């Protein structure tokens, strides 16, 4: 059976644009079976903006799974925003997993915000001042939790949903100097170890849509400015006719 995944990140909704994005979601059930949101749903992470996000994505005819982004953390209210989304029926991942039944296929989605640190050979390591150790350690803990979540996941298809990027392919277009703030190879290493069918992320507004991990897992940067369209749709059972 077909499994069509719609995905977008970095919609960055503010109180001044409520309702504007929603119009693009009309008829989404004809194009996709599930919608994944790759974080940076707000601009400043305030509860007022959280409310705009809830109204924009609630009561859709297909299941919605989200992660938060760095902007959604800016006002120190990520747990409150996640709770508002959950109350509206939107699933929110925080370094854990959810299984959604779609047309008889069990789709497992693992993920969370992710974090930075850079890419193999050009990255920070847990050495020196406590601030640097805390930075690197935050990413390591996240990668470990994803690895466990993937290992324990019982599903037919596996998708990882992140805000930060696990690979540098999809950052092409961004200044190389800021790559360490855009993602970390530790995330890809964990995913490659356990396997997945697709990785979706946002955050890199000037990056590129398509990339690969070292093990050959497809990566898609679905940040709205990268896509230039309301959402991307990725079909996982391509051979069986989408």
């Amino acid at each position: 059976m077909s499994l069509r995944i719609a995905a977008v990140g970095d919609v960055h909704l503010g109180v001044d644009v409520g309702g504007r994005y929603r119009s693009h979601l009309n008829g989404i059930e004809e194009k996709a079976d599930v919608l994944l949101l790759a974080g940076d749903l707000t601009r400043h992470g305030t509860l007022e903006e959280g409310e705009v996000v809830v109204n924009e994505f609630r009561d859709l005819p297909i299941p919605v799974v989200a992660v938060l982004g760095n902007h959604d953390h800016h006002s120190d209210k990520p747990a409150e925003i996640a709770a508002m989304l959950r109350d509206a029926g939107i699933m929110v991942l925080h370094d854990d997993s959810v299984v959604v039944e779609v047309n008889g296929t069990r789709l497992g989605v693992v993920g969370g915000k992710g974090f930075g640190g850079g890419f193999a050979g050009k990255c920070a390591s847990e050495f020196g001042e406590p601030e640097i150790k805390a930075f690197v350690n935050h990413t390591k803990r996240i990668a470990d939790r994803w690895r466990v979540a993937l290992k324990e996941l019982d599903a037919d298809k596996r998708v990882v949903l992140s805000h930060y990027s696990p690979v540098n392919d999809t950052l092409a277009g961004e200044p190389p100097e800021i790559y360490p703030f855009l993602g970390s190879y530790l995330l890809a290493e964990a995913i490659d170890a356990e396997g997945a069918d697709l990785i979706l992320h946002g955050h890199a507004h000037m990056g590129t849509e398509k990339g690969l991990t070292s093990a050959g897992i497809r990566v898609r940067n679905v940040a709205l400015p990268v896509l230039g369209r309301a959402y991307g749709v990725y079909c996982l059972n391509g051979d069986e006719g989408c």
Partner: protein
Amino acid sequence: MEAPQYVAARVQGALAEDDRTHELGIRVDVRGDQLFLRGQVGCLERRALIADVAAEAAPGLTIHNELSVVDVREPEEEEKL
């Protein structure tokens, strides 16, 4: 006179940290007394707001607002993986 790189960095910092903008992806270049803003934003109002915040952070410079507004197109056909 303050080096242009420092002015550009201060403007970029203001755009990221100012509550009105929180924009991280704007490219700021200073050449003489001219300041250039490049990148993509979601709507015309934000385009203007970003130029206002930049002007406040770099008084005396002429602002060239070269930001473009991204139109959200309708979704295309799916990619088969």
